[in-house]
Structure formats: C-alpha cells, structure tokens
C-alpha cells in the first residue's frame, strides 16, 4: 500500500484525471457567460487573430476575384435571364409592401417578429477542431451589443447562433454542429404555417433535420423553411433551407423533414448578426431564460 502512494506518476495521473473531470463538468454546464479568464484569453487571442486574419483575407479575396473573372461570361448570361423577371417582381413587392403598411396601420400593429437589424461582422477565425466543434469567431462582441443566442446569417440564409460573447469577439455555433443542444425553432412556409425544431445535421448529405412536424401534414418538396421567431431573441422569417425529403420519425408520431440549407457552412467570411426589431415582453424574458439556451 505505501508503495502505491509513493508512485509519483500514478498520483499525478489520478490528480489530473480528477481535475480534468471537474473542468469538463464546469464547462459543459449551461453557462450564461464565460468566466473572466476565458474572456480575457479569448479577447487577446482575437486581437492577435485579427492582426493575422486581415492581410490573409485580403490576399484570399484577390485570388477569389481572379477566379470569379473566369466565369463572368457564363454568370452574366444567367443573370440576364433573372433580370427580366426582376422588374415584374419589384413592382409586385412594392405594391405588396404598400398594402401591408396600410393594413398594419389600420390594425394598429407595431412591428412584427420578422423585423431585424443586421450588424456586419467579419470572421477572424474558425475552430480547427471541426466535426466536433463547428464554430467561427467573429470580430463583434458584447461591447458592440451582441448577446448570447442571437441569430447569425450570411447573405443567403441562417448559419447559426451566438454561443458566447466576450467584449470584443463572439463565438458562433454553426447549424452543422453535432451538439445535441443546438436547436432552433423553425416554421415551414405554406398555406398553413407548420412549426418544428431544427435538430441535428446529416453529415453525409449535408442536410439539416427539421423535427416535430405533425404526422398528418402534407409537405411538398422545395417548400421553404424559415425561423419562427418564437424563441427568445431570434427574429422570424430568416431563410434556413428547402425541404428535400420527408420521413416519419422513429415512433411514427411526427414527421422529420430533411432540408438543404440555403447558406454554405464552409465558405464563410462575412456574417450578419441579427438584432430583433420587436421588443420582447418582460414576462417572456424572465420565463424564457431557463430554456432559451436549448429550445430556440
């Protein structure tokens, strides 16, 4: 027995395993905020990263521009065909917007959950530990008004939500992360709005999973899925993806839809962090805080 305790290496190993378990337990718990040493380290790292990232992105941008020039002719042709449709759509949007404004004035509705204000941010780093941690770090933080759980999108669609903030950077967890707590409330656009949650990612096909749709709902291919705006500080009507396939879930009580995401989760350099335009009522703010982290 005394020999066991004299074995220095074994003691070190045991102590470090205990510390390891304690630290992992500490960081896995549903934290509202990072601890201050973490914030300090992340801010310092973010500063160094942005020094290196800015010139690199500039060079990468030039290379990409040259590449783009090669397909200009093809793209131009395609864009011209789209352009013809544009004028018609523009007129329609204008009249619809007018009509909408008039109607909301009559009904005295102030704002809608679809209103949001975008805040531009640049990606300064991406977690190299991909597949387990699909995260990007952007150069806007809590001092710019970013809060935990805010929606983040590129020009094409939703890419994820803010996982944590420090004063000058924030970490965005992408929708393609495997983390089972990464859930987002979504709505299927159609004659009748159907609600479900985005839960999980099919790595092989690069599809998102929309779970919890009613079993008797008729869902067609190519139907659009947007954020519902029902949870916390997420705005509504941010495009997520299009339905590819619908299957009943494992117990046959609900349906699961596979979506093709609108945004590209790989090639991200500029993002928009969305601040919801509509005020959140005080009661919901207090009540929602417990499950905000999981059930957005």
């Amino acid at each position, binding site marked *: 027995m005394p020999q066991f305790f004299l074995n220095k290496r074994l003691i070190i190993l045991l102590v470090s395993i205990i510390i390891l378990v304690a630290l992992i337990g500490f*960081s896995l718990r549903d934290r509202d905020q*990072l601890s201050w040493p*973490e914030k300090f380290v992340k801010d310092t*790292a973010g500063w160094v990263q942005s020094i290196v990232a800015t010139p690199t992105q500039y060079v990468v941008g030039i290379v990409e521009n040259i590449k783009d020039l090669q397909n200009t002719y093809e793209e131009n042709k395609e864009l011209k065909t789209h352009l013809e449709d544009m004028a018609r759509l523009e007129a329609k949007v204008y009249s619809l917007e007018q009509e909408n404004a008039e109607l909301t004035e009559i009904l005295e509705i102030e704002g809608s959950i679809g209103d949001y204000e975008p805040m531009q941010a640049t990606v300064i780093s991406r977690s*190299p530990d*991909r*597949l*387990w941690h699909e995260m990007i770090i952007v150069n806007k933080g809590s001092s710019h008004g970013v809060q935990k759980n805010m929606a983040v999108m590129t020009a094409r669609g939703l890419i994820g939500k803010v996982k944590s903030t420090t004063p000058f950077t924030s970490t965005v967890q992408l929708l393609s992360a*495997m983390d089972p707590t990464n859930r987002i409330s979504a709505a299927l656009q159609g004659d009748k709005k159907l609600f479900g949650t985005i839960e999980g990612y099919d790595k092989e096909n690069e599809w998102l999973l929309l779970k919890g749709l009613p079993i008797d709902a008729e869902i067609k291919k190519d139907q659009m899925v947007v954020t519902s705006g029902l949870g916390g500080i997420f705005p509504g009507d941010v495009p997520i993806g299009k339905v590819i396939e619908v299957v009943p879930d494992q117990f046959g009580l609900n349906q699961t839809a596979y979506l093709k995401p609108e945004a590209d989760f790989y090639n991200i350099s500029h993002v928009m962090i969305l601040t919801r335009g509509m005020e959140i009522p005080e009661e919901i703010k207090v009540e929602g805080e417990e499950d905000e982290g999981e059930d957005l």
Partner: protein
Amino acid sequence: MKRFLVPLLLTLLFVIEGLFAQLLPANLFNGDYILVPRLLIMAIFFLTIYGSVKHGIIYGFVYGLLFDMVYTEIIGVYLFLFPLTTYFFLMIMKVVQTHILVVSFVSLISIAALEAAVYGMNLLIHIADIDFTSFTEIRLVPTLALNLIFVILFAYPFKKQFEKFADRLRND
C-alpha cells in the same frame, strides 16, 4: 528577443490553425472530408525531442489550455491530451532512434493517437455521435494525409530551430 522565439512560433502556429479552414479552397473535396491541421502539437513534439522535455510538456499544457478556451470552449480535453500525447511520443522515442525520419513518423503516429483520444473523449461527453468507421473515413485519414504533407515541409526547419533553442538553454 531570442528568448521569445519559441512561444512566438507556437503562437503563430496556433493562429494559423484557426485560419486554415478559410485558406483552404472551399470546393476542395466538396467538403466531404475534414482536414485538421496539427502544426502546433507537431512543433511541440519536435521541441521535446530536439529542445527540452520540460519545456515541451509545459508548452503542451499552456497551448492545450489556450486551444480549449479559444477553439472548443470545453476546458480540459486538450489541456489534458496535449501533454499526454507528448508523453506518449517520448515513450516511443525512448525505444527508437532520433533520426529525423523516425521522429517524423512517430509524430504522425502520435497525432493519430491524439485524434483518436479526442474522438473518445467527445464520445464520452456526447459531443460526437458518429461511429468509429465514419470518423476514420471523414476525419482521421484525411487529417493524417494533410499532416504528412506538413511534416515533410516543416520537419527540417523545426529541427534546426529547436536545436538552436537547446543550445541557448545550455549556454544560459
């Protein structure tokens, strides 16, 4: 100034790892495979073998903690595994020659061990939910292929740099 050369080099590698995903052309392999650069731990391996063991393990701890805080937000996994794989690497190096080719090969093996250990840990805390075969296919093999290229490129510069570092330590 020369005292800060090693931490500076390791910090640079740390930052490059974070930028790597943006530097790699997006349409390469159509995003089917995940290539993880492991330059930092590779440099730490070379530091332990050509520089000093003590410094290697300490840098393993420090950069493991940094990696956890900045890139994963789960403190503990890399903090524990960076020094442990460095130790594992040293154990193998005790029985084989310190020829640069052998060192490169053993560091690749150690990187594979690190990847597998990270997978195991993440499986335990329910972050990973894929089976071992798909993990090998999607992440392990491409990562090793990428790091093979890196080790070919950087083995000699690393060796030179850390031998100089060992010289400086001896002279102090």
